[in-house]
């Protein structure tokens, strides 16, 4: 017996509709989650103007693409994200946090800078609204007994411990170990904090080199010839620059001029991995080595993040600001999924037991200790290779081979 199947247009339409009905629930579910009203209202409190405006805006990029990424990773949550500008002032941060709570935000996220974050934290604590700290390194944030705070960012001691550990990994991987080092540091709050931290931790870190000198320069310096000359005269084999963007450029220009070619490892400060530095320094930016928490290039979610970031902000560099701010949104979304409630106590209970294996930054699962600190964040060694930033260590996240010591300024490998 033979059966005959008639492929009419109507029949095909019925089959297609049936298949769509059976096969579509998941996409439909996520699509409906995105078109439906938001599940959770998040107050994103950042310095969008003032001295830290650029950083605040880069942080916001991570939040702006969060809902799109949730669709891609099939996380059935939609966040309503409302941004509040701190103007880089703690007192404004506090009033903005009050405004966010009154506007009905269920979770606060912010605020990049420790002073502003503490101002927000007090409102969060007094009102009983959870605060997810995206970036702020001051230890007291999670050491002061706050009940409504979790922080997904390393503390300053964690950053430095990670820097020392990765330096050892760099020496082991390259087979080259310097016997002496010199610190060349910007003399501002951040620079002082780094230098003091290094001074305090260095004796216990078991490093194979000695620090011959610590040379500081003014934050407004327009010329570093004297400082670089002094560092060169120390005859140190390795330079540890503690810098920001503009002085990083001045420093490298002066090193080229003075033909000083030490091994160089930035122990955890900005400047040398920034897009502007790479663009303006050209071949002299190549092989620059910095230690930073960074996006895990091998994580599937990072690729999705990069895709959306590139589409929405073409030409903009994606870095830790966007990465950690996106992760803060991810943490808030998971908390809502677990709590199935917007009540502060339920959300906070869920935040405390957060466990997220798949995320974007290098490190173990996102989880918080009793004080609200995520201790699983790891540093990475970043190297500028072919005008791009590549993770070269730790090995499980590395996307390129480490080049250390760096080739000389006139080496043909620099193009």
């Amino acid at each position: 017996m033979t059966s005959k199947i008639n492929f009419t247009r109507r029949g095909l339409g019925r089959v297609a509709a049936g298949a769509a009905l059976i096969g579509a629930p998941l996409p439909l579910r996520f699509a409906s989650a995105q078109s439906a009203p938001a599940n959770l209202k998040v107050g994103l409190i950042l310095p969008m103007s003032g001295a830290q405006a650029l950083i605040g805006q880069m942080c916001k990029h991570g939040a702006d693409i969060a809902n799109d990424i949730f669709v891609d990773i099939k996380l059935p949550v939609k966040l309503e994200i409302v941004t509040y500008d701190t103007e880089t002032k703690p007192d404004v941060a506090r009033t903005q946090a009050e405004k966010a709570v009154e506007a009905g935000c269920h979770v606060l996220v912010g605020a990049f800078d420790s002073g502003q974050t503490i101002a927000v934290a007090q409102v969060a604590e007094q009102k009983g609204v959870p605060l997810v700290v995206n970036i702020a390194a001051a230890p007291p944030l999670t050491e002061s007994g706050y009940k409504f705070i979790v922080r997904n960012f390393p503390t300053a001691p964690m950053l430095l411990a990670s820097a020392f550990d990765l330096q050892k990994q760099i020496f082991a991987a390259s087979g080259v170990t310097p016997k002496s080092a010199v610190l060349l540091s910007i003399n501002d709050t951040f620079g002082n904090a780094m230098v003091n931290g290094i001074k305090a931790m260095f004796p216990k870190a078991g490093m194979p080199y000695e620090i011959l000198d610590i040379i500081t320069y003014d934050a407004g310096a327009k010329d570093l010839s004297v400082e670089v000359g002094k560092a060169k005269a120390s005859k140190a084999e390795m330079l540890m620059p503690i810098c920001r963007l503009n002085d990083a450029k001045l420093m490298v220009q002066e090193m080229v001029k003075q033909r000083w070619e030490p091994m160089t490892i930035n122990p955890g400060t900005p400047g040398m991995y920034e897009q502007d530095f790479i663009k303006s320094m050209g071949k002299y930016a190549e092989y620059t080595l910095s230690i930073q928490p960074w996006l895990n290039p091998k994580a599937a979610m990072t690729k999705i993040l990069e895709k959306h970031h590139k589409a929405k902000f073409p030409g903009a560099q994606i870095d830790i600001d966007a990465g950690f701010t996106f992760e803060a949104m991810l943490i808030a979304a998971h908390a809502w999924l677990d709590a199935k409630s917007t009540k502060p106590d339920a959300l906070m209970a869920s935040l405390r037991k957060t466990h997220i294996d798949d995320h974007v930054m290098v490190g173990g699962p996102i989880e918080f200790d009793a004080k609200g600190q995520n201790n699983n964040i790891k540093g990475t060694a970043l190297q500028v290779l072919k005008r791009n930033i590549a993770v070269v260590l730790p090995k499980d996240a590395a996307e390129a081979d480490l080049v250390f010591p760096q080739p000389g300024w006139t080496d043909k490998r620099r193009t």
Partner: protein
Amino acid sequence: MTARAAIGLAALLALLIAAPALLGGYGLSVLILVLYFAYVGQAWNIMMGFAGQLSLGHALYAGLGGYIAAGLYFHYGIGPWLGIFAAVAVAVAAGSIVGYLGFRFSLAGVYFALLTIAFAEFTRIGFDNWEWTGGSGGLFLKVERGVVDLANLRGGPVMFYYVILALAVGALVLCRLLLESRLGRYWLAIREDAEAAQAVGVPVLWCKMLAIMISAALTAVAGVWNAFYYNNLFPETAFAMGRSIEMTLAPIIGGLGTLFGPFVGAVVLTGLGEIFTAAGDRLDIPGIKQIFYGVALLLIVMYRPAGVWPWLAARLGFAERKP
């Protein structure tokens, strides 16, 4: 004071006392900012508005006051009401040094202003490297939820609101008494013409020294309040030039040398600030607030160069005696 002005003032005070019951958390936090800037503006007004000495480094006294009281509480558990005496003493000492160097050697105008900035700056650098105050990493006070402890200034915004309200009213009364006193009249004479005042026997150096000491003391008290309200201090912000400038704006916009100028200026500035912040949030253009704010200040200075309060007082029939 006219009966009409007295009634208006009493009504305003009653409204301010009732404010926590009428406003939400956001409204209250804005009102706290208004009163804080009114208070520090009043303190700065003694220097510039009454005695005619331009200080652009008043953050020095607020920073010192805050750090001393917060440090004593943090390290030794000494409450702020005791710590405030040490804070005021240190700020007055600092003010005396600045004042003596400036007034004894006849530094006036912008040169004196530069001296005040210089002191605030090198104090900032010193505190950046002073471990007792936490250095550049900052000094943090513990925050406790649901506690109202006036003795140690630990509590929520409502408690801090009433403290800053009391301070602001106290500063207003003090300034009124000072203006009515012989010292106040000496200050006004010095402000108008220091040489003429000296010629008729006014002890100019001593009067200027008293102005800076009283102003520093009042500003240090604001610093103590600020430190315990925000629970954190960083040298970079506590002694910042921007902080000093903020203190000058309310009296300049409200009316230099007037009693209510700092209050009116603080209301106008904070109110405008919040309106422009809301506009910036709505338009989603970062930094637009600062542009609006700058234009608004420019217009006020252009069209009301004597400040908003003298003009407003004349319209309302509350004309303040012109000092």
